[in-house]
C-alpha cells in the first residue's frame, strides 16, 4: 500500500470556487478525517479523489499512480482508480441483494464465481451481516445498510477507503456505537481511510489525524489533541468544542503571552495574534475550562448568574454582564446573583 497525495487541488462547480488549493497526505494505514462546516469543500475534495469531480488545478496520486493532474491533462476515470467509496446515503442498489451488492466490484474485476462467494461471505461476516446475504437493501435497518455499504467498498481491498459522512444518517445513539465499531474495524484491518464529517467529536474519535477545512482551504491539520488544545486560528478555535467568546481591547502582546481588557479587568492568556496593544481582540475559552469563584482574583470577571440548567450529569450556568454572555459547567447549582467567573490563563487564546 502506498500513500495518497493531494497537491494544491482547486475545483470549481459552476461559478463557485469550491476548493482553492488544498494539499493533503494520507500515509498507508492512517485514518484522516476531513472536517469542516457545510460548504467548506470536504465532500467535494472526497469526490475529486474518487474521480467523480475534476479539479482544474493540482494533482492527486496514490504511490506512483497519478489519478489526475490538471497541468498534464491527466484524468483517470473513477472506475480505474480502484478506491472504495461509502456514500452518505449508502447508495445500495435496490435491485440487488446484499450479496450481489457486495459482489459487484469483484465481478467487474473478473474474479471467479467460487472466489467471489468466499470473499463476499468473509467480508459480510467481518461486518457481522453474514446471515443477511440474500436480503434486499430495503429489508435492512439503517445501521445494517450502512455496514453493507462499507462491505461493498472493502471487498476488493482498495488501497484507501473513502467515507462520506457515513454515520450522519443514523440516529444519535446508534451513531456513537457505529463510531466505535467503525474505528475498531478500520484499525483491525489496517486500512487507510479518509472520513468526511462535519461533527468534530466524530472526527476526533475516529481519526489519527484531522484536517480542518474552511471555505475551500485547509485551516489547520494535526492530531485530534493538537487541534483541540492548540488551535492556530480563530476559526479552528471556534469550530472545535463549545466555547465562550470574549471581545475586548488588547493591552499586552509579547513572547507568546497576551492580555485583553474588558470591564476594566485584565484577562491574560496565550497569544494567537500579531496585533499590537490597543487593537480589538477576541478571547476564546472552552466552556469546560471556565471556573466559578465567590471572590475577586486574577483573570476573573464579576458577572450575574442568569439561568442554571440541569443537564443530567452536570449543571450548565449562564452568566451575563451587559452584552457579554458566558457559559460554564458546574457539579452543583449556584445561587442566582453575583459571582466571579475565572478564565484560566492556560485555557484562554487571544486572537
Amino acid at each position: 500500500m502506498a500513500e495518497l497525495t493531494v497537491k494544491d487541488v482547486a475545483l470549481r462547480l459552476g461559478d463557485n470556487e469550491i476548493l482553492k488549493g488544498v494539499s493533503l497526505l494520507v500515509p498507508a494505514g492512517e485514518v484522516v478525517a476531513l472536517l469542516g462546516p457545510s460548504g467548506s469543500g470536504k465532500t467535494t475534495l472526497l469526490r475529486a479523489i474518487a474521480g467523480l469531480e475534476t479539479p482544474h488545478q493540482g494533482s492527486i496520486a496514490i504511490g506512483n499512480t497519478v489519478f489526475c493532474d490538471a497541468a498534464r491533462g491527466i484524468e483517470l476515470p473513477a472506475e480505474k482508480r480502484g478506491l472504495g467509496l461509502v456514500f452518505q446515503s449508502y447508495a445500495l442498489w435496490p435491485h440487488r441483494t446484499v450479496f450481489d451488492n457486495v459482489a459487484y466490484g469483484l465481478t467487474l474485476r473478473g474474479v471467479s464465481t467460487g472466489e467471489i462467494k468466499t470473499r463476499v461471505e468473509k467480508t459480510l461476516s467481518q461486518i457481522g451481516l453474514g446471515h443477511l446475504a440474500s436480503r434486499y437493501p430495503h429489508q435492512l435497518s439503517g445501521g445494517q445498510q450502512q455496514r453493507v455499504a462499507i462491505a461493498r467498498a472493502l471487498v476488493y481491498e482498495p488501497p484507501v477507503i473513502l467515507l462520506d459522512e457515513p454515520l450522519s444518517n443514523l440516529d444519535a445513539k446508534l451513531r456513537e456505537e457505529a463510531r466505535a465499531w467503525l474505528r475498531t474495524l478500520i484499525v483491525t484491518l489496517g486500512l487507510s481511510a479518509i472520513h468526511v464529517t462535519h461533527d468534530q467529536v466524530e472526527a476526533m474519535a475516529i481519526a489519527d489525524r484531522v484536517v480542518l477545512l474552511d471555505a475551500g482551504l485547509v485551516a489547520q491539520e494535526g492530531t485530534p489533541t493538537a487541534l483541540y488544545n492548540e488551535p492556530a486560528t480563530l476559526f479552528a478555535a471556534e469550530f472545535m468544542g463549545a466555547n465562550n467568546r470574549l471581545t475586548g481591547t488588547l493591552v499586552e502582546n509579547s513572547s507568546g503571552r497576551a492580555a485583553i481588557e474588558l470591564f476594566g479587568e485584565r484577562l491574560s492568556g496565550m497569544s494567537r495574534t500579531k496585533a499590537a496593544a490597543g487593537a480589538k481582540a477576541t478571547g476564546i475559552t472552552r466552556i469546560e475550562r471556565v471556573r466559578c469563584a465567590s471572590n475577586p482574583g486574577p483573570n476573573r470577571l464579576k458577572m450575574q448568574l442568569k439561568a442554571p440548567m440541569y443537564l443530567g450529569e452536570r449543571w450548565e450556568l449562564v452568566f451575563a454582564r451587559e452584552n457579554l454572555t458566558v457559559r460554564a459547567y458546574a457539579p452543583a447549582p449556584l445561587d442566582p446573583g453575583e459571582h466571579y467567573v475565572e478564565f484560566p490563563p492556560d485555557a484562554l487564546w487571544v486572537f
Partner: protein
Amino acid sequence: MPIVVYRLLVLGVTTLVVVAPLSLVVYQSFLTAPFFDPSAKVGLLAYSFVLADPDFWQAFWTTIAIAGGMTAIAVPLGALLAFLMVRTDVPGRRYLEPLILIPIFVSAVVIAFGYVVAIGPVGIFSTLAKDILGFVPWNLYSLLALIIIAGLTHVPHVYLYSAAALRGLSTDLEEAARVSGANPFRVAVNVSLPMILPAILFAGVLVFFLGFELFGLPLVLGDPQDLLVLSTYLFKLTNKLGVPSYQLMAVVVVAIIAITAPLVFMQRMLLRQAQRYVSVRGKGLKTQPLPLHRWRWIAFAGIILWLCLTVIVPLFGITLRSFVVTWGEGVNLLNVLTLDHYRELIEYPNVVRGIFNTLGIGVIGGALAVACYTAIALAVHRWNSGWTRLVDYLVMVPRAMPGLVAGLALLWVFLFVPFLSPLKSTMVSIWLAYSIVWLAYGMRLVSGTLLQVAPELEEAARTAGATDLRVKRDVTVPLIKYGMLASWLLVFLIFVREYSTGIYLLGPGTEVIGSLLVSLWGTGAVDLVSALSVVNVVMIGVGLAVAVRLGVRLHG
C-alpha cells in the same frame, strides 16, 4: 465501445432522422414542381400561389379562431376541475380521475364520428329531441359547435398540468387563507390558482398550439359546412389540382411549422418557469381536503355533466350506431339491433390487416420506440456537455410537426431516398413516422424515469470499477425497468389511437385503424366506421384498464 462513440452515434442518428424530413419539406417548398419531376426548378412560385389563395387565408383565420376559442373554454374549466379534484372533497375523486383523462386517449376522429351519430342532424339524440320538442335545439355543423367541442375535449390537458402543479403546492398556503376566513371558492381564486398561474399559462399555450394540430374534429365536423382549417386545407390540397401538388403542400406545411415552432419554444420556456415556481411540499403530510359542504354535489354534477358531453355522448352514440341497422323517427331501436357491422369488418382484408397492424404497432412498435427513446435518453443522461442542449432542441423539432405533416414529410423521404423506397409500403414506415411524431412525448416519459435514479447509485458503481456503459447496463437500466414498462403502456395507447400520422402513408400493407377510419369516412361507410371505431376504443380501454390496474401514472 467507449461511451463517447455511443453518444455521438446516437446523436448522429437522431439528428438525421429528425432533420431529414423537415429539410426535405423546406427544400420542396422552394421548388416549382414535385421533387421527382425533372422540370422542377428553384423558385417562389408555390409560395405566391398559396399566399394568393383566399381559401388558405380563410383556413388560417378559422384555425386562429378555433385555437383561441378552445383555449378560452379549456383553460378556466381545466384549472377549476384540477382544483376540485386535487384540493376539495368532491365525491368519487378516485374513480373520476381516469375517466377525466379519457378524451386524451381516445382518437379525435372517433369522438368526432360519435358526435355526428349522436347529435348530428340525424343523430340519435337529435331525433329524440325532435320527437319531444318538434325541432333540434342545436346545430353540430357550425363553427361555434366545433369550438365548444374542441374546447371541452381539451379540458383534460389543462387539468393534467394544473393538477400536477397543485399537488406540488404546499397546502399551508391555502390553510392560511381558510383560517383568515376565505370560503373554498375564494381560496381557489385568490390563492391556489394564482400560485399555479405559470402552469396554467403553459397549459393555455399548449392548448392553443394543439388547436393548430386539430385534424379529426375539423375534418369530420367542418367538412359538411365547407369549413377548412390549415390541416384540412393541406389534406384537401392533395387532390386540388388533379396532379400531386407537392410544392403547394410543402408551402402549407412550412406555414404550419412557422406558427407551431415558436409555440413549442414558448411552451418550453413556460414549462421551465412553471417548474421553478413549484414550492417544496412538507414531509408527506396528508392534509384534509377542503370541505365544499352544499357545493359538494353541485361540483360533482358539473364534472359529470362535462363527462357526459365530452365522453359519454359521443362514445355512446358511436357504440349504439355500431349495433343497429339504422335509426330515425318512429324506429324502435330494439327491432334494428344487429351484429352485421362487425361481421362485415372481417370481410374486408384491409380492415382485418388494419386491426392486426394496429395491435402490432402498439405492442411491438411501442416497445421498439421506447427502446429507441431510452437509447437517446441514456446517451445524454449524466452527460456534462453542451451537446445535451442540441438533443433538447432536436427532440422539440418533431413536436412542431402535426402528425399529418410528419406523415407527409416521411412519405417524401421514402420517395426521395432510393434505397428506402421498398420500406414505404411496410409497417416500418408507419413505425418510423409514429416514433418521430411522439419523440418528445416518449423522451419526456423516459427522462422523467431517469431523473428518479439517484446519482450516487451510479457513482457507487463507477467507484466499484464499472465503466460508463457498464454502469448503464448494470445499474441505470435495471432501475428504470418499471418506468420503461409504464412508458411502453402509454406509448401503446397513443400509437393505437394515432390516426393522422398514417394517412399519407396508408396503402396495402400499412393499414392502421386510425387512417382507415379517415379514409372509410370519406367513402361514407358509416356502418363500418362505427364498428371499427368501437374496436379501436375497446383496444384503448383495455390498455387504459391495464395501466390503471398497474398504477401507471397516465401522464408524463
